[in-house]
C-alpha cells in the first residue's frame, strides 16, 4: 500500500517539481563546505562587490562572499527545519493518536493545543525566544512548541475519524486489545495526514527562522542565515541589490519546494482533504 502511494507520488508532477527544488537546496546545504568558502571570513577590502566570476552572488556589507553565505544559510535553515520538524511531528503524532483514542488525554491536551493553535505562531516564538534568550536550541524549542499543536490537531482529527469507522467497531467486537487497534488501525491511518503535515511544518519552520533572524532574534548574529543577510539588505539595497535578492530567492525556492511537495503528498496521502 505504501509502495503504491509512493509510486503515485513519483507520478505526481507537482510533487516531483517540489522534490526537485527541495533536493537542490538540500544538496547545497550538504555540500556547502565544498561549494562555498569560509562563511566567517570577513574581508573589509571587498565589501558590497557586485556578482562576478570570483564572487558569483557578490559580497555583503562585511565583505563576505554572498554565495558562501547563501549555501551556509541553507545549512542553518534546513538543519533547524529538519530537527524542529522531526521533534514536532513525532510528538504531535503520538499526542494526536493518544488524543484521538483516549478521552481523558484528549480533554487535557486539546485545551492546551487549542490555546496555542489559535495564536499567531510567530508572535509566540518571538516571545518565547525573548523569555528564553537567544540561541539555536532556544529557537528550536520555541518553534517546536508552536508546531506541535498544529500536528496534534490534524492527527487527532484523523484518529477520531478512524475510531468512528465501522472497521474499528468490527475489530473491537472480535475482542482486540486497545494496543492492537491503535497499532494496526489508528496509527497507519493517522500517518498519512502526518506526512502531509511534516511538509507544512517544515515550510513554516524555514519561514519562521528567516523571519526571526531577519528581526535579529534567536540566532547569534554571526551564524550565516538568509534572514540575517536580508536584514542587511534593508540598508544597502539601493547600492547592492544582490544582498536583497539572492537570500530571498533561496527562501522562496526552499519553501516553494516544500509547498509543492506538500500539495503532492496531500493528493496522494489525504485525497479527502485535498478536494476540500
Amino acid at each position: 500500500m505504501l509502495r503504491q502511494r509512493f509510486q503515485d507520488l513519483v507520478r505526481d508532477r507537482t510533487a516531483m517539481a517540489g522534490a526537485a527544488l527541495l533536493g537542490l537546496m538540500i544538496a547545497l546545504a550538504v555540500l556547502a563546505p565544498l561549494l562555498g568558502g569560509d562563511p566567517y571570513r570577513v574581508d573589509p577590502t571587498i565589501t558590497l562587490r557586485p556578482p562576478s566570476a570570483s564572487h558569483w552572488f557578490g559580497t555583503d556589507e562585511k565583505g563576505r562572499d554572498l554565495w558562501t553565505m547563501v549555501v551556509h544559510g541553507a545549512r542553518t535553515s534546513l538543519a533547524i527545519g529538519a530537527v524542529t520538524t522531526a521533534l514536532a511531528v513525532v510528538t504531535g503524532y503520538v499526542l494526536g493518536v493518544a488524543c484521538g483514542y483516549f478521552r481523558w488525554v484528549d480533554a487535557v491536551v486539546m485545551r492546551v493545543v487549542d490555546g496555542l493553535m489559535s495564536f499567531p505562531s510567530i508572535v509566540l516564538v518571538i516571545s518565547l525566544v525573548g523569555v528564553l534568550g537567544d540561541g539555536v536550541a532556544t529557537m528550536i524549542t520555541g518553534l517546536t512548541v508552536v508546531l506541535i499543536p498544529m500536528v496534534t490537531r490534524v492527527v487527532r482529527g484523523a484518529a477520531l475519524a478512524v475510531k468512528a469507522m465501522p472497521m474499528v467497531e468490527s475489530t473491537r467486537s472480535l475482542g482486540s486489545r486497545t494496543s492492537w487497534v491503535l497499532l494496526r488501525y489508528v496509527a497507519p491511518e493517522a500517518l498519512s495526514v502526518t506526512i502531509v503535515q511534516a511538509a507544512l511544518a517544515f515550510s513554516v519552520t524555514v519561514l519562521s527562522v528567516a523571519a526571526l533572524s531577519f528581526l535579529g532574534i534567536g540566532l547569534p548574529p554571526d551564524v550565516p542565515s538568509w534572514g540575517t543577510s536580508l536584514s542587511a539588505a534593508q540598508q544597502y539595497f539601493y547600492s547592492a541589490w544582490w544582498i536583497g535578492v539572492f537570500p530571498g530567492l533561496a527562501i522562496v525556492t526552499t519553501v516553494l519546494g516544500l509547498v509543492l511537495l506538500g500539495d503532492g503528498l496531500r493528493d496522494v496521502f489525504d485525497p479527502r482533504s485535498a478536494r476540500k
Partner: protein
Amino acid sequence: MTVVLDLDGVGKDFSAGPFFARRRTAAVTSVSLRVHAGETVGLVGESGSGKSTLGRMAIGLLSPDRGRVTVQGQPLASLTPGKMRTFRRTMQMVFQDSSNSLNPRMTLEDLLVEPFRAQGLHTRSQRRHRAAALADEVGLARGSLVRLPHEFSGGQRQRISIARALALEPDLLVADEPVSALDVSVQAQILNLFKDIQQARKFAMLFVSHDMAVVEFISDQVAVMRAGALVEFGSRDDVFDSPQQPYTRTLLDAAPSL
C-alpha cells in the same frame, strides 16, 4: 432449547437536538426478548426504530441504560473490560457496510487470522490453517488470501465479514442489515449462506433488517420494532400470516411483491 440471548427490559437513551436544548430521547425504550440456540430471530423495523441499537446492546458493543443483557447465562454488565474481551468469542456481529468494516490495509488472510490473534488462540501456523478453512466455508477462493478488501466485490466482502464472525465459533451472531447494500442476485447468495452455516453450526442469530421479505425468508421468530419499542413478537408463520398489530400489517402492505 437453551436460551442464548436474554434481553430483559433493555433500553438506551441518546442525547439529540441542538447544542443547548439537548434532550435525551430513548432510542430503545424497554425491550425484552429471548433468542434460543439454533434459532433465528428476525428483528424488523423502519429507520429510527432502534433495531440496530438493540442489536449492538445484545453483544455488548453498547451498554444499556436500563435492563439486563444476558448471554449464555452471563450478565454482560458484570463483566470487567478484560473479561468482556475474552467473552466476545461467545458473541459476534456481521456488519452492514462491509467496505468500511474491514481494514483496507489487511489482506484476506490477515483479516481471517485477526479473530484468533485478538483472542490469543492457536499457534501461528494453526491460525493460517484455520483462516484457509474459513475461506473455504464461506466460499472464498484460497488463491485470494493475499488480496486486499478493495479487490473483492461487495458480496465477497460480506462473505469475509461472515467468516470473521464465525472464526471464534460464537454461540450468538447478530447480523445488522447484512444484505441491504447488496444487489438482488448477490443478496440471495448471502442469505443462503447464512442459512447454511446456521444449520451447520447451530448458533443463535439475531437478524436485523428493514426488509419484510428478507426477514420472512431467514427467520424462525420475528420481532417488530417501532419507535424504540417491541410491538409484535411471534413465530414467523404467525406474524406473517395473521399479524396482530396494524403496524405490522402496514409494513407487510408496503413490502414489494410480484
